C-alpha cells in the first residue's frame, strides 16, 4: 500500500479500485474520501456529478475477478419487478414522486443484477 497513484479517466474506472485522494465536487464538497473502494453505484454518482478524473491507488492489486463488474443486463428479471410492484401496491404509480421512486429502485435493481 503506498503513496503511488495515477490519475484515471472516469471511463476507465472499474469497481474495486481505491481512491488515492479525496474526490471533491466542483462546489468543493467532499464526494468520496481517500481510500474508498469504488462500487458501480459510486462510479455512476461520479458520472452524474461530471467528475472526469479520479486519482487511483496504483499499487493496489488490480481488481480480482470477483470484484469485476458482471456484464450489465439490459432488463431486470421479472421476479424482481414483480416483487418491486408488490411492495408498491398501496401507492399510486401515477404520482410523480412515486413514479420517480419506482424508477430509481428499478435502476438500482439493474446495478445489482
Amino acid at each position, binding site marked *: 500500500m503506498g503513496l503511488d497513484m495515477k490519475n484515471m479517466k472516469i471511463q476507465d474506472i472499474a469497481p474495486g479500485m481505491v481512491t488515492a485522494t479525496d474526490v471533491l465536487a466542483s462546489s*468543493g*464538497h*467532499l*464526494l*468520496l*474520501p481517500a481510500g474508498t473502494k469504488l462500487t458501480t*453505484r459510486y462510479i455512476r*454518482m461520479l458520472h*452524474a456529478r461530471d467528475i472526469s478524473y479520479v486519482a487511483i491507488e496504483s499499487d493496489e492489486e488490480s481488481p480480482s475477478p470477483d470484484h469485476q463488474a458482471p456484464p450489465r443486463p439490459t432488463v431486470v428479471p421479472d421476479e424482481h419487478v414483480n*416483487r418491486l410492484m*408488490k*411492495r*408498491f*401496491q*398501496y*401507492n*399510486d404509480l401515477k*404520482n*410523480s*414522486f*412515486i*413514479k*420517480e*421512486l*419506482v424508477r*430509481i*429502485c428499478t435502476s*438500482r435493481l439493474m446495478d445489482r443484477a
Partner: protein
Amino acid sequence: MTLTAREIVAGTVEVASLPEIFIRINEMVDNPHYSASDIGRMLSKDPAMTARLLKIVNSPFYNFPSKIDTVSRAITVIGVRELRDLVLATTVVKLFTGLPNDLVSMDSFWRHSTQCAIVARLIAAKNRELNVERFFIAGLLHDIGSLLIYRKIPELAREALLRASHNDEVLEIAERQVMGFTHADVGAELIRKWRLPKNIEEAVEYHHLPQNCHTGAKEVAVVHLANIITAAIWDTAPEPMVIPPLDPKAWEVLDLTPDDIEPMVSDAELQFEEIFSNLFTENVFKRSAS
C-alpha cells in the same frame, strides 16, 4: 386485556426520562445567561459524549475548513440549538442500546432510523428549512415506539409483524388490529413524556398518516416522505415488505421536484456509514441481535 400506549411508556422505567445532562443542557440553551463556554463545561462532564459530538461536527457533512476541537467552538460554528439536537440524538441512542429485544435486530432497526434521519435532513435542507438537525431527530425517532412495544408486549408485537408480512399489510394497520394502537402512538407518547418540541412529537405520531395532523408542521411531511424513500430504497428485509402509502399532500407542500430525489439518495449513501458509526460506537449491537 392489552395495555394502552400510555401504560407501555409509563411501564418502561429505563427510558422514562432523559438523562440529567441533557435536561441541564436543554435549560442552558434556552437561558440567555449561559454562554457557549458554560455549555461546553457542562458537556465536558461526559467526556465520551463530548468526543462523539466533536467527531460528528468534524464529519464531511458539515465540511468545515479547519478542525473543531472544543465544544464552545462547535457551538459558534453550528449554533447552540443544533448542538442541543446533536446531544439529544446521541443521548437517545445511548439510552435505547440498553434496551434489547428478541424480535428485531437493533442493528437493522437503527440502520433504518438513521437512513430516515439523514434523508429527512437532506429534504429539509433542500426545502431551505432552518435548523435541519431537528428534522434529523424527528427521522431518527420516528419508529422509537416499536422498541417499547417489542420489549413490553413481545407476543402481540410478533403477531402484528407476522400478520403484516403474511397479508402484505402495512405494519401500522396490523398493529391497530392486533393491539388497538400503533408504534407511532407509543413513540409520540414517549416524546411527550420527554417534553421534546411539539413538532417532533407530531412527526412521530403522524409519520404514516400526515393527513390527520392539522398544525401543518413541516416535520410531519418531511418524515413521512423520508420514511417512504428509506423503505423503498434500502429494502433489507428478506420478505417483501410493503412500502407505506404516500399522502400526496405531503409531497405537494414541499418545494421539491422528482429530480431532487436521486441526488438525495446518493448523498444519503455517502453520509451513512460515518454518521452511523459516530452514533453507534463500539459493539453496542452484539448482545441484542435476534
